[in-house]
């Protein structure tokens, strides 16, 4: 223990601090917002140009493939799926680590995730966008993708809900939607920070609009946190379900090498494994380039490496069980597939996969590899390569030896295949570069909340940074509270406090004095504030439940009506009404609508978006999303009396007290 503390700078006696460099709220805000606000650095332009060139290549290739047809790819009977599905599964898999970090680790209260979750979620979104690109082009006639949408149409047919491909559409579409919502939801407070720091009018308005009028109200945080928990729970269900359903595309077939019950867990662990290695690939250079070493320290990287080691071993177990079952199952076809993988014409792909995914991650047993960024970067690159080859091996080697030797064939990629693969990386990296330039790449409000000073029971050291400012502010307070334009009745009295602890004490004091219409404004949720403000349990879970029940009922009855009543299509003799086959889509839709319910609940209960609010008139209120802690007493409160309330606020430690008009 002692040794570890020494190594991490001995920041805390019990547990090494997650945020190094002695940051406070203001310096953290400056650091993260600076990435967006400061002039664009040269390295950004260089990397962005390279990515953009790759994106243009990918765009041209997409146009070529869509306009000419997928015959320009190298695949042909018997290899009907090749790079397209390999890339699709690869990119969907990459996304899973983002959701793991943002959702599962949130539920497990892993505080270190706060430094990583925002950009990992963005990685998820962009990876899913790439997956969507490949799977859409792969349709051949991409403009007919609407056949997958269960809308009434002139051809009177509906999707076949007994096919894994329509499950897949539901799963990936739900995943993309919920991940986007979750990501944007977390961004709201940080967008408000950028709004309040922005100097240009247009910039302020754009961030302001996107922030939906967020003002960090204690009552809002209460519902916000509840929704965040709901979304984390729902996204957890997606981490497990989405790649399971992607694996059904293979596992429900009768192709040896695909037709296996190990596929769902094996795909999910593989997905997380590949995604975590992509996180390392991205964060190791970015923490240096963006100056985020304080936020993403050695401890974060080491935990990521350990996770890669763990998921890598789970994946290896999947590989071994596959081999064991092929041998033990006794099917000559199954045995041949695996023998062929190891020794056949694609053996070099198989062994690349084995070396990169099974052997190389074991380097992380050595501490040196877990603590040396460039070494872990190389291992992560190997894992990325290995995971791409894993999908290639699964897709292509299972197909290229058909049951009859007369139908055997080979797949060789054409230049279009290869350029489109490169273009996929172009799309991903271009979106990612734009993201780090336009949006805060670290979840500010969450990182602030894990600083020791965020604990209201922590007594902060006096902060020299704001001494002069505060002295100035208190001088201003001596003048009568008169900020704002007198164009309405008085709305509230606003006071600023030094820290979360002072704010909490002040709230308790005012509540004890009989005030009820109080609200606090802070850059992050303060532990214990909902109790001090006497807020009831949030109603957001009820909205989530209602959404979930609606989604379940809607999806199941839709599938039943379309399959069993409106369009009774006989597909391979499967039952027309087969509730078992409806489970995946019902589940995904339930999660989707529950997430809609959770977000709608937060917005409705908090009355957002509300772009204008009287508290925005506060002189230093822009600090409420940075490092300021405010308390507002509404004029509607029966106990409200201008002079008495102001005096009480001052007595409780309030500064810059002012009366705001509506």
């Amino acid at each position: 223990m002692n040794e570890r503390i020494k190594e991490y700078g001995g920041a805390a006696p019990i547990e090494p601090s997650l945020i190094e460099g002695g940051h406070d709220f203001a310096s953290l805000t400056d650091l993260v917002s600076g990435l967006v606000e400061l002039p664009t650095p040269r390295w950004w332009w260089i990397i962005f140009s390279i990515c953009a060139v790759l994106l243009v290549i990918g765009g041209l290739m997409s146009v070529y493939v869509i306009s000419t047809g997928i015959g320009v790819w190298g695949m042909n009977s018997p290899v009907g799926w090749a790079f397209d599905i390999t890339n699709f599964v690869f990119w969907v898999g990459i996304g899973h680590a983002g959701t793991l970090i943002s959702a599962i680790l949130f539920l497990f209260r892993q505080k270190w995730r706060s430094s990583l979750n925002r950009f990992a979620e963005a990685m998820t979104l962009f990876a899913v966008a790439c997956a969507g690109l490949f799977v859409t082009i792969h349709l051949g006639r991409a403009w007919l993708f609407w056949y997958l949408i269960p809308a009434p149409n002139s051809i009177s047919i509906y999707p076949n809900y007994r096919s894994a491909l329509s499950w897949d559409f539901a799963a990936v579409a739900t995943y993309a939607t919920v991940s986007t919502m979750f990501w944007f939801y977390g961004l709201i407070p940080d967008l408000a920070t950028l709004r309040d720091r922005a100097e240009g009018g247009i910039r302020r308005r754009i961030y302001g609009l996107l922030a939906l009028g967020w003002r960090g109200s204690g009552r809002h945080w209460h519902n916000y946190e509840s929704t965040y928990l709901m979304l984390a729970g729902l996204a957890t269900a997606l981490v497990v379900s989405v790649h399971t359903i992607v694996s059904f595309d293979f596992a429900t077939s009768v192709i040896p090498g695909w037709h296996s019950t190990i596929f769902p867990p094996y795909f999910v662990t593989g997905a997380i494994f590949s995604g975590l290695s992509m996180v390392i690939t991205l964060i190791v250079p970015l923490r240096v380039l963006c100056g985020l070493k304080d936020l993403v320290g050695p401890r974060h990287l080491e935990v990521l490496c350990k996770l890669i080691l763990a998921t890598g071993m789970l994946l290896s177990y999947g590989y071994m069980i596959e081999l064991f079952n092929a041998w033990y199952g006794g099917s000559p076809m199954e045995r041949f597939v695996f023998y062929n993988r190891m020794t056949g014409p694609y053996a070099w792909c198989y062994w690349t996969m084995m070396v990169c995914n099974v052997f190389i991650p074991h380097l992380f047993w050595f501490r040196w590899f877990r603590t040396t960024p460039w070494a872990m970067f190389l291992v992560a690159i190997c894992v990325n390569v290995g995971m791409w080859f894993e999908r290639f091996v699964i897709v292509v080697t299972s197909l290229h030896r058909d049951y009859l030797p007369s139908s055997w064939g080979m797949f060789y990629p054409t230049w279009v295949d290869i350029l489109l693969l490169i273009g996929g990386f172009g799309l991903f990296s271009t979106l990612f570069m734009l993201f780090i330039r336009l949006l805060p790449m670290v979840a500010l409000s969450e990182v602030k909340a894990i600083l020791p000073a965020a604990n209201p029971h922590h007594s902060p050291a006096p902060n020299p940074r704001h001494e002069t400012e505060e002295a100035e502010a208190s001088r201003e307070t001596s003048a009568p509270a008169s900020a704002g334009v007198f164009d309405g009745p008085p709305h509230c009295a606003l006071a600023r406090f030094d820290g979360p602890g002072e704010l909490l004490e002040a709230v308790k004091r005012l509540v004890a004095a009989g005030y009820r219409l109080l609200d606090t404004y802070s850059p992050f949720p303060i532990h214990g504030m909902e109790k001090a403000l006497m807020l009831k349990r949030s109603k957001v879970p009820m909205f989530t439940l209602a959404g979930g029940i609606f989604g379940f009922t809607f999806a199941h009855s839709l599938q039943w009506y379309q399959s069993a009543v409106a369009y009774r299509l006989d597909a391979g003799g499967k039952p027309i009404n087969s509730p078992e086959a409806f489970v995946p889509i019902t589940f995904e839709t339930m999660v989707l609508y529950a997430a809609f319910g959770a977000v709608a609940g937060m917005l409705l209960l908090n009355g957002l978006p509300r772009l204008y609010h009287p508290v925005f008139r506060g002189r230093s209120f822009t600090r409420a999303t940075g490092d300021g802690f405010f308390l507002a007493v509404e004029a509607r409160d029966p106990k409200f009396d201008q002079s008495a309330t102001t005096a009480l606020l001052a007595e409780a430690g309030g500064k810059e007290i002012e009366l705001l008009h509506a």
Partner: protein
Amino acid sequence: MPLVFTKTADIVLGRIVVGCVLSAGLIVSGLYYYGHPLYTRVGYAPIQPVRFSHEQHAGRLGMSCLYCHTGVEQSSTAKIPPTQTCMNCHQAIKATSVQLETVRASWTSGAAIPWERVHRTPDYVYFNHAVHVRRGIGCVSCHGKVNEMPVVVHDKPLSMGWCLDCHRHPEEYLRPPDEATNFHWQPPEARTQIEEGRILQAKSRIKATESCTGCHR
């Protein structure tokens, strides 16, 4: 710091949201209406090289469809009659009519009259004309009341959903096969169309296919 948004911003935002929802609704319903074959195909009435009136020939003169469109009971495709069919009569009747100039020119030169095709099934649809006519699907069911059309109009959408309507419930459209070309056929007094259709369906052992491969072979 000046305010980012004033009080009116929320009102404007509300209006924008309502506007977006309404526009999205308009776009979706517009696509449904203007993209549906009911809109894109029904009403198509191209100008033909000869102003031939079905109303005159099939309606007032009461000529059978089969006089000109021979082979619809035997062939998988319906046919446009050759110029000779026109000239069977028009050598004698209105033999000097200016309106028939194109017909006579075609007859003497031997080049076909370039009629504009009105009804067309896509290449990926297998449609056998004879099977439908001989099982008792009337001309009128798919082509409309041609006997009342001075210019032939695309009367039905010919969408896949429209095909399936009949394939799922053929009894609503069946008639005795020898009444297929009769524009004025009605089910017998004692029975409704459905009852009559069921009898005919049983008699001809009609199992209209709903399988994909029935039409997409």
